[in-house]
């Protein structure tokens, strides 16, 4: 890996946003009510928008002429750097909302902090994203509460999703060598510093939702160094289909 830390860091953020945006876009047209189709559209657009800005910046940092589409469409799964949580399948509506809650409860304070980054471009992208993530957090928290404290069936489904996704929550707080130097330089954010905020948000929502916080068992990790679950390959085979089937075409 010869990529600079800043490039790797930017791609991690970009890939995470794109993969989650792609997942949410899968719901549009298939939601429980029209209003949720609209909400998934909004959230998906927010995330894809974040990804586009980040990829463009990554392309600039790299300086090899790769644009947002070259980075999104022409890298294979091992080159993707997203966290594992966001590539997990949508499952039912509860699973999607819990995944969104787990991510947004982290991403909101993360972008809030990143908006003060010494890297002006990342700071500007984060400043926009923080407003979007506030909505994602509110929306997913409201639904998690509604479903957790709704009927017995919805409670069970939501608890089951929470249990299943929990092992993917620790990866968000990890740091490695790539990020450490950037954190020291005031460019990246130390995610561990946001752990208490995340815990507090989660505990509040889960208690309102009458859901039980799962125990921290073995935690899955590896997305940020390209070790993914089986799901990412399928996402990319759909996402990249046209670019791969018609190499070099302009759309």
């Amino acid at each position, binding site marked *: 890996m010869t990529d600079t830390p800043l490039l790797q860091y930017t791609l991690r953020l970009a890939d995470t946003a794109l993969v989650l945006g792609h997942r949410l876009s899968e719901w*549009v047209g298939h939601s429980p009510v029209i209003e949720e189709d609209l909400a998934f559209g909004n959230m998906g657009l927010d995330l894809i928008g974040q990804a586009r800005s980040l990829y463009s910046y990554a392309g600039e940092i790299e300086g090899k002429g790769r644009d947002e589409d070259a980075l999104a469409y022409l890298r294979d799964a091992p080159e993707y750097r997203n966290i594992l949580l966001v590539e997990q399948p949508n499952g039912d509506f509860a699973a999607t909302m819990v995944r969104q809650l787990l991510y947004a409860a982290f991403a909101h304070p993360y972008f809030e902090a990143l908006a003060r980054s010494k890297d002006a471009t990342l700071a500007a992208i984060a400043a926009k994203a923080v407003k979007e993530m506030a909505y994602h957090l509110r929306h997913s928290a409201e639904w998690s509460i509604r479903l957790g*404290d709704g009927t017995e069936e919805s409670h069970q489904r939501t608890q089951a999703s929470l249990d299943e996704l929990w092992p993917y929550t620790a990866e968000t707080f990890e740091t490695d060598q790539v990020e450490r130097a950037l954190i020291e330089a005031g460019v990246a954010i130390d995610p561990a510093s946001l752990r208490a905020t995340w815990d507090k948000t989660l505990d509040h929502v889960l208690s309102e939702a009458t859901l039980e916080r799962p125990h921290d068992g073995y935690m899955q990790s590896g997305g940020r160094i390209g070790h993914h679950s089986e799901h990412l390959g399928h996402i990319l085979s759909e996402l990249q289909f046209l670019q791969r089937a018609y190499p070099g*075409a302009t*759309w």
Partner: protein
Amino acid sequence: MYTQALNTQDSAPVAKSDPQADSRFQARVDAEEKIEPNDAMPEAYRRTLTRQIAQHAHSEIVGMLPEGNWITRAPSLKRKAALLAKVQDEGGHGAYLYAAAETLGTSREQMEEQLLSGAAKYSSIFNYPTLTWADIGIVGWLVDGAAIMNQIPLCRCSYGPYARAMVRVCKEESFHQRQGYEIMIALCKGTPAQKQMAQEALNRWWWPVLMMFGPPDKDSLHTESAMRWKIKRFTNDELRQKFVDATVPQGHFLGLTFPDPALKFDTTTQHWNYGEIDWAEFKRVVAGDGPCNRQRMKQMRAKHTDNAWVREAANAYANKRRQRAAAMPIAAE
């Protein structure tokens, strides 16, 4: 998106009308006054409009399926975002139109029920599949283009809430149409394979799109009363001709060939003459035997049934909250 709204005949008995009230109503319509939800209106007018607006709303919602089919496979991030936003707009139109229809006294739940039971129709154009990315261009350029032809006059419809809804919907649809045409330009300026993809999509969609305007005037059941009530301003054939005249030069600009050997510009009438539409196909697809009718209904029913527990949970939670709120003052005493 618009639908062949007035093709199904309403066979239910209509309450006996009051001739005096009816002529007062007609005088208001003739004077181009807008009819508002609480105004007196003939029962047949209310029914016709409810059916048309509901059918229009259903079309927006079902229409999300063939277009949504390509969201995850859009060829660039820009196209992906644009398509996502477009499909989201269609959902917004659906919600907006259901609200307009509700002002006539039928609830959204009732209308949705009618769609799922097959009692209500949606535009038959969505019973055709989107097989390649070029279909997304065609749907924007031609399907939305035909919809705009139909809907611009509806902005002056006698029923206020529908007319106002149409003003907003038309603005968004014309944006979608430009977007669709832009996809076609990119394909036609692209590689030979892309150009071929564009041509094949046009070949598949051209005739079904012409059918979107409904049966020829000589066979149209509802045109007369709908015109009198100023729900409709132009006949099916008039709108179809306008559409052909506007669209053919756009297709030629792209370097595409229309799949109609009879298509010819008439220098006397200054219109494009077109060949015979296969009305047997139209009837067959409306009746349920299009390529995707069963699939679309299955998808609509599945999302309704599979997600019933979500709606139940939302209701249960809302009830709990109401009960807790009601219990609070007592607890405080």
